[in-house]
């Protein structure tokens, strides 16, 4: 019953999306103007129906309804409730439904609260949003129906991959998807503006909160995913340049560029065509990422070729939407003028530099991610990994980060470096000092550069506050300062992890002691423990930092029985200056147990920095939305007074 309800809601949502597209498009013409009134309500209803459909699937997973194929394949009655619920999106069909639901709700939200866009642009935007939604509804209904019944029902479910049974991963996909799909709003705004040719500061101010919102979620999603990989995979790596990671990084890079160019457009009415282009590119990257992750092409090009139905469907959508948007851009770009001009040394100049560099990094990541797939299609298997991505992206990232120290200090339109040279003395000294110190430590070029840039940015990010009364500083400026400081903090963590990590691999008997960095670690006991759907061997470690207080760590090796899988649960001990990371391996000969221990100085800074970046975004969003609200309230008051006087 619930499955049928969910499926019906999904069909209805698809039908409403079609209606929204047609009505929105017709309403732009003279004869169809009467339809304008229904577009917003339809958009709201479409989102609500998508939500109903998604909630129906959640209920099916909650009840472990084994007569539904998807539940039988991906869930198990003995699974903890949290993972039953989060199992909803731990599979292909469920995650695509989550995608479509977020997309529908974004459209609803735009229809409900966006007031600043001129009406024609708004109609075109909602039509564009419906057009994209429609493709994903069609994909779900045609080739990924999550509500397919199983007759007869399964006796027991097959279970969820134990790696995914983790609180961190439970909320990673929804966060990331809100970010991914939230960018569809920027995409639809860009389409709407291209259709009506209304690109200007008002458009930018309307678009900015949406971009900021999705960018915050993307940032948090990537940070959470990176931390999950760090502690769950049990090897202490936090970024692997894995295609799935790159799939989330690419929209983030585009959205970061968009965030900065939209500010230029809002403040100075410059970079018009470029901003619209980035709006198209950002969501295109979301779709490319979805294609990579969901088509099965990553496992093997051949696996994709053997069962091409889903992959080709998404590929078709990709070509349709990206190609269509680029075509529209090509046709209209010439009529969207570039806007106001500015000197090279100016705030705009620095932001253009940042945008171009981010785009180049995006290009590198895209090429490096797609190339192995292309090569495999041509019959050769190659791998592209950290030895390629790290140095090649650094070529662009290092100049960008240098300019990041200076850009926020420059004035709009025209400025000179000599005006701000006194402020730059300290950051430059820090940069050079850290670089010299790093070079003398023989830690490698990239970690040394990372430390130097972090030292410089840590100071430079606060310089825009200089000479201001802190209480009067507006929230968006605080947001910028905090986010840029977050970049410095994250860089410190990355460089420190690369330069200073200490590793110890040992086989210990119970009672034996080893050392890693400043830590002394004793293996006290190995004991068996049991959880709801696993059993484990757990090590009791007593660790003390530089002979200080003893703390306990419990790394474990878990065996799940459905599906039968072994995972290792790392144990972490965090201090202000770093993390001790312990993993229990197998038993080796003579009652010894394999232990992997790492001392990773300042490594948590990577994620603290990432969170600071997101917090900066949040402050900016808060500030913008609050001032918008104040303006609306004031405007409504004036309108109300006038109407009273009129009477």
């Amino acid at each position, binding site marked *: 019953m619930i499955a049928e309800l969910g499926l019906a809601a999904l069909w209805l949502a698809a039908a409403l999306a079609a209606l929204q597209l047609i009505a929105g498009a017709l309403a732009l013409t003279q004869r169809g103007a009467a339809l304008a009134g229904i577009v917003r309500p339809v958009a709201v209803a479409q989102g609500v129906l998508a939500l109903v459909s998604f909630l129906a699937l959640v209920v099916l997973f909650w009840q472990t309804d084994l007569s539904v194929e998807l539940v039988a394949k991906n869930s198990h009655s003995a699974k903890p409730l949290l993972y039953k619920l989060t199992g909803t999106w731990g599979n292909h069909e469920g995650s695509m439904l989550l995608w479509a639901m977020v997309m529908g709700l974004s459209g609803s939200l735009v229809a409900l609260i966006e007031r600043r866009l001129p009406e024609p642009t708004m109609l075109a935007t909602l039509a564009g949003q419906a057009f994209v939604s429609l493709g994903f509804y069609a994909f779900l209904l045609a080739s990924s129906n999550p509500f397919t019944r199983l007759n007869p029902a399964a006796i027991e479910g097959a279970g969820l991959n134990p790696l995914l049974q983790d609180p961190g991963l439970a909320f990673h996909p929804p966060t990331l998807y809100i970010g991914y799909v939230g960018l569809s709003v920027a995409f639809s705004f860009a389409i709407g503006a291209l259709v009506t040719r209304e690109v200007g500061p008002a458009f930018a101010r309307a678009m900015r909160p949406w971009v900021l919102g999705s960018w915050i979620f993307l940032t948090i999603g990537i940070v959470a995913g990176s931390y999950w990989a760090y502690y769950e995979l049990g090897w202490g790596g936090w970024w692997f340049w894995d295609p799935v990671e790159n799939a989330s990084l690419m929209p983030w890079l585009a959205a970061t560029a968009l965030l900065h160019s939209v500010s230029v457009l809002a403040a100075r009415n410059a970079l018009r065509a470029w901003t619209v282009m980035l709006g198209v590119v950002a969501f295109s990257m979301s779709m490319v990422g979805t294609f990579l992750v969901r088509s099965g092409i990553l496992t093997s090009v051949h696996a994709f070729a053997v069962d091409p139905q889903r992959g080709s469907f998404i590929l078709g959508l990709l070509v349709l939407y990206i190609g269509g948007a680029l075509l529209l851009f090509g046709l209209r770009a010439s009529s969207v003028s570039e806007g106001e001009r500015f*000197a090279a040394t100016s705030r705009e100049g620095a932001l253009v530099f940042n945008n171009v560099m981010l785009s*180049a990094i995006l290009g590198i990541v895209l090429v490096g991610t797609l190339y192995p797939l292309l090569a495999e299609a041509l019959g050769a298997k190659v791998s592209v*990994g950290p030895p390629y991505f790290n140095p090649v992206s650094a070529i662009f990232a290092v100049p960008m980060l240098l300019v990041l120290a200076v850009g926020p200090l420059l004035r709009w339109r025209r400025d000179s470096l000599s005006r701000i040279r006194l402020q730059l003395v300290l950051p430059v000294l820090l940069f050079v000092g850290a670089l010299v110190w790093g070079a003398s430590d023989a830690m490698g070029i990239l970690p040394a550069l990372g430390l130097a840039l972090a030292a410089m940015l840590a100071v430079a990010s606060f310089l825009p506050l200089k000479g201001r009364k802190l209480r009067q500083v507006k929230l968006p400026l605080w947001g910028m300062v905090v986010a840029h400081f977050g970049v410095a903090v994250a860089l410190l963590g990355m460089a420190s992890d690369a330069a200073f990590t200490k590793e110890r691999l040992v086989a210990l008997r119970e009672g034996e002691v080893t050392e890693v960095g400043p830590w002394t670690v004793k293996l006290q006991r190995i004991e068996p423990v049991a959880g709801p759907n696993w*059993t484990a*061997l757990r090590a009791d470690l007593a660790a003390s930092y530089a002979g200080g207080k003893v703390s306990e760590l419990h790394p474990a090796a878990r065996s799940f029985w459905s599906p039968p899988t072994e995972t290792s649960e790392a144990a972490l001990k965090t201090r202000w200056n770093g993390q001790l990371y312990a993993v229990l*391996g197998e038993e080796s000969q003579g009652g010894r147990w394999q232990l992997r221990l790492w001392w990773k100085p300042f490594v948590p800074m990577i994620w603290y920095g990432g969170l600071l970046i997101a917090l900066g975004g949040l402050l900016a969003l808060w500030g913008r939305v609050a001032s918008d609200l104040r303006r609306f309230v004031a405007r409504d008051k004036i309108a109300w007074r006038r109407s009273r006087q009129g009477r």
Partner: protein
Amino acid sequence: MTRAWLLIAVLAVWAAPLQAQDGVPPAPYANVQLADPAQEAKAHALMLTLRCLKCQSQSIADSDAPMAGDMRSLVRERIAAGEDPEAIRAWLVERYGDYVSYAPRVTPLTWPLYVIPLVLLAAVGLVLRRRLRKGDSA
């Protein structure tokens, strides 16, 4: 009922190492560091750039797979014997193909990987020059 499960669980736990003993023991240097820190650092740096062939997107330095362990052992033994890291990489590539190395070689198939960044660099320079010059004269 719970007790019965617990009993089974505990038994299963103690049975696991017995099963493990049936398997081939890991290679000598799979999980053992080299005594010389400089050599170990060299070996580790190389391991980070070699792909575990049995895993999805993991280097042999980040994998529990037995084959990754064998390859780690091989890398450490050869580094200890004084072999150059790039020579070891070349040997592995010859044996397992380009797929094993995360640092793509320049071949007739892979040269665009290295040319595209140069093209991007040129494009970036061009865009910046055009945009920023044009603005200057305004």
